[in-house]
């Protein structure tokens, strides 16, 4: 009996989660249908069996449902944006909404006694406390991803620098794509000189911007974020760098082995000279023996010599 309502509960949430993701135009029809069915089932179930939830006020149930929807939406977004990482760009609205929903549950809104009851009955009345756990999980993920770093202070939209970076990132990706036209990737490592030449400028700009961001971030470390940039930016840069230096093999540092060897062997040679010369020229330090005033009995000498032999 138990799994079925659970499933039924989840389905509308999924459907709702899919709903706001408007930029994802392809919505699976089947899922939609399922979702509608689920919604129907839930209403039926909720209305039909009032005795099952004796302590939960309708208001609270509404809050809980909203939270469930919000978390489902966020989960879906996070999952879909896992690779390539676009978490912060795509999901920050969901996250903000979820925070608000959680806040609604926890905080007193409207009739204080009732909300208080809501918070109590939803958040703390059982061992599992699933709502708290979910909210903690999202918070932790958000913090690990360091998304606050890409967002403006009110967390409503991406910060200017992030937008700039992403623009540049897209530009360089386009550049790569453009220059690779007609070639198949992974063809042979020597065929990328074109890319390297043409996209060098964009790549350099991107790299510099990233380094700048990093430096600024490190200097403004007291704002509470760690030294990392947000995961979107980091990952974007990572991908580009990997493409650039691994796949295209564009960054070829000049290695000047000969001068390095020369200089280092010169320096390594110096101590040899030093020790040899001090061995040969420095006067060896002599110690002057002081003769102790002692009874020179044979007993002690014998004693010592016995030990020697």
């Amino acid at each position, binding site marked *: 009996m138990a799994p079925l309502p659970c499933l039924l509960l989840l389905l509308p949430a999924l459907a709702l989660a899919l709903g706001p993701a408007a930029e994802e135009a392809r919505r699976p029809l089947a899922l939609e249908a399922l979702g509608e069915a689920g919604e129907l089932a839930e209403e039926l179930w909720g209305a039909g069996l009032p005795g099952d939830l004796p302590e939960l006020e309708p208001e609270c149930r509404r809050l809980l449902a909203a939270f469930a929807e919000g978390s489902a939406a966020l989960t879906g977004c996070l999952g879909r944006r896992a690779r390539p990482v676009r978490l912060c760009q795509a999901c920050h609205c969901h996250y903000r909404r979820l925070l608000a929903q959680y806040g609604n549950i926890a905080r007193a809104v409207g009739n204080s006694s009732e909300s208080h009851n809501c918070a109590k009955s939803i958040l703390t009345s059982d061992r599992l406390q699933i709502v708290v756990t979910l909210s903690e999980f999202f918070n932790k993920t958000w913090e690990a991803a360091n998304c606050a770093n890409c967002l403006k202070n009110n967390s409503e939209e991406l910060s200017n620098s992030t937008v700039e970076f992403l623009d540049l990132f897209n530009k360089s990706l386009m550049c790569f794509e453009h220059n690779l036209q007609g070639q198949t990737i992974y063809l042979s490592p020597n065929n990328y000189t074109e890319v390297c030449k043409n996209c060098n400028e964009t790549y350099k700009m991107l790299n510099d911007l990233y380094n700048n961001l990093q430096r600024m971030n490190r200097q403004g470390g007291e704002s509470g974020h760690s030294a990392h940039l947000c995961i979107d930016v980091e990952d974007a840069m990572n991908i580009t760098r990997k493409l650039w230096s691994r796949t295209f093999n564009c960054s070829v540092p*000049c290695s000047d082995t000969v001068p390095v060897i020369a200089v280092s062997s010169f320096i*390594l040679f110096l101590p040899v000279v030093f020790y040899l010369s001090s061995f040969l020229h420095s006067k060896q330090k002599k110690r002057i023996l002081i003769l102790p005033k002692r009874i020179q009995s044979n007993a002690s000498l014998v004693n010592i010599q016995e030990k020697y032999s």
Partner: protein
Amino acid sequence: MANVAKKVSWSGRDRDDDDEDGRAGETTPLLNGTGPGAAGGARQVLTPSSFLRIGQLSNVDLNEDIRELETELPRQHPNEIPHNEKLLSLKYESLDYDNSENQLFLEEERRINHTAFRTVEIKRWVICAMIGILTGLVACFIDIVVENLAGLKYRVVKGNIDKFTEKGGLSFSLLLWATLNASVVMVGSVIVAFIEPVAAGSGIPQIKCYLNGVKIPHVVRLKTLVIKVCGVILSVVGGLAVGKEGPMIHSGAVIAAGISQGRSTSLKRDFKIFEYFRRDTEKRDFVSAGAAAGVSAAFGAPVGGVLFSLEEGASFWNQFLTWRIFFASMISTFTLNSVLSVYHGNAWDLSSPGLINFGRFDNEKMGYTIQEIPIFIFMGVVGGILGALFNALNYWLTMFRIRYIHRPCLQVVEAMLVAAVTATVGFVMIYCSRDCQPIQGSSVAYPLQLFCADGEYNSMATAFFNTPEKSVVNLFHDPPGSYNPMTLGMFTLMYFFLACWTYGLTVSAGVFIPSLLIGAAWGRLFGISLSYLTKGSIWADPGKYALMGAAAQLGGIVRMTLSLTVIMMEATGNVTYGFPIMLVLMTAKIVGDYFVEGLYDMHIQLQSVPFLHWEAPVTSHSLTAREVMSTPVTCLRRIERVGTVVDILSDTSSNHNGFPVVESNPDATQVAGLRGLILRSQLIVLLKHKVFVERANLSLVQRRLKLKDFRDAYPRFPPIQSIHVSQDERECMIDLSEFMNPSPYTVPQEASLPRVFKLFRALGLRHLVVVDNRNEVVGMVTRKDLARYRLGKEGLEELSLAQT
């Protein structure tokens, strides 16, 4: 009455064993002391070449000369030998742990009532608190300055390397790095070599000697502290393979010695406080507290600090002293912790209890299982062998340095060369390494890209291009896979030789961190290969193997046991590691001791310090006090002529510090029994204040000398040359009975060496008078007489005295 047996016995075999003319001057004829009890025991050994002097001596009336026994024999040509480890230097004197209970002392004790003694007790606590606070603050200062300067240096070099990686010309970066290192180290070395050479090294051997009761000149001066602190900062910033933890112990000791005296002779300031503590006994107690506070600040290990003092100076240890030492340690680590947490911006967090923090070792992630204990023990064996190798190499190097590189400018040049080579080796290793790790998610302070792909850093650079403390923590805590085995192997090899080469340079620097670093590197390598061999099923985290390797290596080098276990345990903050760390350290010590002794003991020996170990050599029971003691002894009469005292004190050939006082009976036929013991320092104070019998009769208003006058002169009594005694005054008499210690410790001639040794060590004596059964002075045992006998490779050895 005293009969002198004149018997010449000098077998050819004995002669061959000695230097040709070496023993000639040593054959001082025995002049007294063959009472009935020791009849036949005394034989005079003469070489044919010294018959002449026998002739001279034979017309001296021996019976009359019995009170005043001096060596008036002309010295032979001094015998010069190259420095070796079987010498005892004359430079080192003993500290006096024994209280001189003379009349002044008794008077003072009568004057001070009960409450005053309670004040003294409170003052002790206050001093300990101050020691803790100041030691903590000094540690903070060192830490902050090193962090900033080293950060600056690494940023400059990194910027330079990054720039030249693109354009080419990396040899300039190498030159820049080497020059920066060399110049910083040059400053550090110059101040040590030219201003205060005793500040060189880690300072632990010196403090060990001090706690053992050897007075190392300048070791607890304020000047030494300043040089030490600056020297440590400069040598760590200069990128040498050194740490700043060992010198903290020395710094703590100097702070303790300074505070407890309430004045500084370097600054020529006397704050007129804590005058009660101006003597060796009290000072030494406080120095042990200071050393403990230093350890505690260095490793965040207060208990380890207490145990360190205990291990090194435990013969003078009691419950109250330990409790005070513990107090000082706790205060020290707490001060460091609170100041550093304020500095790092999270006040009240208290997360950095020591200069080095090993980081958190969680039980879940880095716990160990019982099956791993044999592996740890095996690591202990490896650590012992490597430690012994380290010490043996360092021994040869130090010997070479003492013999050939003794001029300060040469020492500075050597330090600079080491700094430049350290940079070069680091650079070449980084240059040749192809071990690249992704930058994401790592906590590398100065990631060097060099030839790695964009977004990656050179893994060798985390080990070389960083301060050693940070590298140690990285090796402990970086996730598995951060280093590849090749990198670790090369790093261990290179760093081993660099650290070995660096220790003993004329810079102030410690050996703790380099040892930990070497150990952590091979330990991690060991851990990686272990998980590789077992297909990575269990024992996943190489971090704990790095920890055990570090413990093994450090134990193999310094051979500390109890205190090191506790220090490591406290630094990891995990008590469950206590057992494996103990096993590892034990194994490392046992294995290492099989080959050579510990680094600190080795350096003490190479410095020719008369260090007394815990026990006399085991096979020495057949040696008696007769053979050990120095004789004849320069004695003073109870009422002595000033001229005689001045002459004795000014005699450069016999720089004695304690003089037995004998009965001043003019009747020569009577036995001149021992009445007391007086020290050179006391005599000098007496001469300075001109406490002569005649003057006392002349004017009754003359101020009586108090104990305070002696304390004011402590610890640097003026040399005898600075005291002017006129010709008239030379004829005056001086009465010593009030000032001498009336009950010096004595032993009979038949006492065996271990017995004498035990008395000496346990009571912290400086002079032990050997008497015959008529209470006549026969000889004197001092620290050097006992320290001469040592258990060498072939049994009992005798060291010779030398001027250094």
